[in-house]
């Protein structure tokens, strides 16, 4: 197996494993649109990174974290609904990204950002992705009970002394970081699918929050394996192939009888 394929596989598996539990939270908290917002913001990150000639991944990460912080800040205003805030942020970020990219001239290869450029992942990229995913996953594991209680009922959790606002911030920042790094794997357009599809497929097969989260990671890994195999043998784009495989698994779960 060629080296580039090994690095691509390692990166994709790491992202799939981290996206499992986070995707479950995205589904439980109905944050799907947040993933899209981050993805649109990532494009702005690309433009800003090129403009300031800093590391693109770093620029994207900073951009996603800023978006999460703005979202948390705007959510304190009761007049604005979550979906309106996200719509506002998402499209403003997308527009700003497109304007910045056009100002840069035609030097940006948009296609690789929209659909991912997994096969160009090098050894250092793979190591970085694995490290980031490990940190995010460990954080989720440490705060699992508190995160889960905050999701079940925020008021009840607050009365019981859980720092709900902090847990929410932690979750949004974790998602922001994983989305920023997952962009290399599946691209801007399909990041939300990477979070949601394995989690939704796992929901149909599991009976507890923990098994749903782990199941989502496993389904994500299977999708990565199938998608990469297809990509290698039939020269399809890697990111979309992975998402398509995950959707295929979801469709298969539809045939399982609900218990």
């Amino acid at each position, binding site marked *: 197996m060629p080296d580039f394929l090994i690095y691509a596989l390692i990166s994709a598996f790491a992202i799939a494993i981290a996206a499992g539990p986070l995707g479950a939270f995205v*589904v*439980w*908290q*109905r944050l799907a649109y947040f993933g899209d917002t981050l993805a649109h913001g990532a494009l702005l990150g690309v433009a800003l990174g090129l403009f300031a000639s800093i590391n693109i991944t770093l620029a994207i990460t900073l951009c996603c974290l800023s978006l999460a912080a703005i979202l948390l800040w705007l959510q304190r205003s009761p007049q604005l609904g979550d979906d309106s805030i996200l719509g506002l942020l998402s499209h403003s970020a997308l527009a700003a990204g497109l304007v910045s990219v056009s100002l840069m001239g035609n030097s940006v290869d948009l296609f690789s950002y929209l659909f991912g450029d997994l096969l160009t992942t090098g050894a250092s990229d793979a190591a970085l992705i694995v490290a980031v995913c490990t940190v995010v996953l460990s954080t989720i594991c440490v705060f699992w*009970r508190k995160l*889960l*209680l905050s*999701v*079940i*009922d925020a*008021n*009840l959790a*607050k*009365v*019981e002394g859980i720092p709900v606002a902090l847990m929410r911030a932690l979750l949004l920042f974790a998602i922001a970081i994983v989305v920023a790094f997952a962009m290399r794997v599946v691209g801007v357009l399909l990041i939300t699918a990477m979070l949601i599809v394995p989690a*939704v497929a796992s*929901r149909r097969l*599991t*009976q*507890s*929050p923990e*098994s*749903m989260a782990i199941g989502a990671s496993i389904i994500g890994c299977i999708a990565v394996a199938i998608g990469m195999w297809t990509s290698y043998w039939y020269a399809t784009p890697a990111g979309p192939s992975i998402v398509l495989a995950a959707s295929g698994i979801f469709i298969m779960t539809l045939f399982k009888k609900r218990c």
Partner: protein
Amino acid sequence: MLKTSTTLVSPPTPLVQLDHVNLSFNGNNVLRDIHLKLHANEIVTVIGPNGAGKSSLVSLIIGLQSPSQGSITRKKNLRIGYMPQKLAIDPQLPLSTRRFLSLCGNQSALEHAIARLGIECLLKTPVQKLSGGEMQRVLLARAIMQNPELLVLDEPAQGVDVTGQAELYHLLGELRNELGCGVLMVSHDLHIVMAQTDQVLCLNKHVCCHGAPESVSQHPEYLQLFGRQAAKDIAIYTHNHDHQHDIHGDVIDQQSTQHHSHCTHNHPNS
């Protein structure tokens, strides 16, 4: 403002004390000049019509909301067991009742609460599928797992018939004795309250009147209506108002208010 239980020798420090508490949203007065003390071993029932600010009062007491004016003093590290009206849990979250309960306490507290409320048969049911009455018992089990010093129940009698209410009140009375906790209960039923209630507080943006309920277990008509056991656990509260409210809940200025003398608090708007 409220007198404390007479059975206690020295005046104990209240678990929660509200002084001159006002709450308003965008200039709308929701609660006005509330004074309230909650003590251990004391049961307080807050009654009032819809929109009277009962749920806001609960939010203030359990600390989900801060008052616009006035002060709320809580006992240090007060353990509150809170039973909300209902939980809205996303159906995408696979959560059995047992897992839901085990998230918030150790194994022995869990087993004790399960046995105490008799919810063994519900443990495998997903929490989203529990009926109203079942959810109520599960939430109560969860509340007592915290070994609370103050038990706060938001509309526990909602959607439950009189017999079910009486059973719940009976259970709450027992739990109060077992845990020695204070109980604050909110009810929209303006007349039927828990028999063991020490204080009834009639709320309509301000405290309209307060007092102890009347036992109904001696009235043959009630015995016939509710049954002997139920009549022991519920009581009738007789209101003692000296003012009327308009449809928005604001106090109407009336000549007749001068004839009464038992309501001494001020109505700034009247």
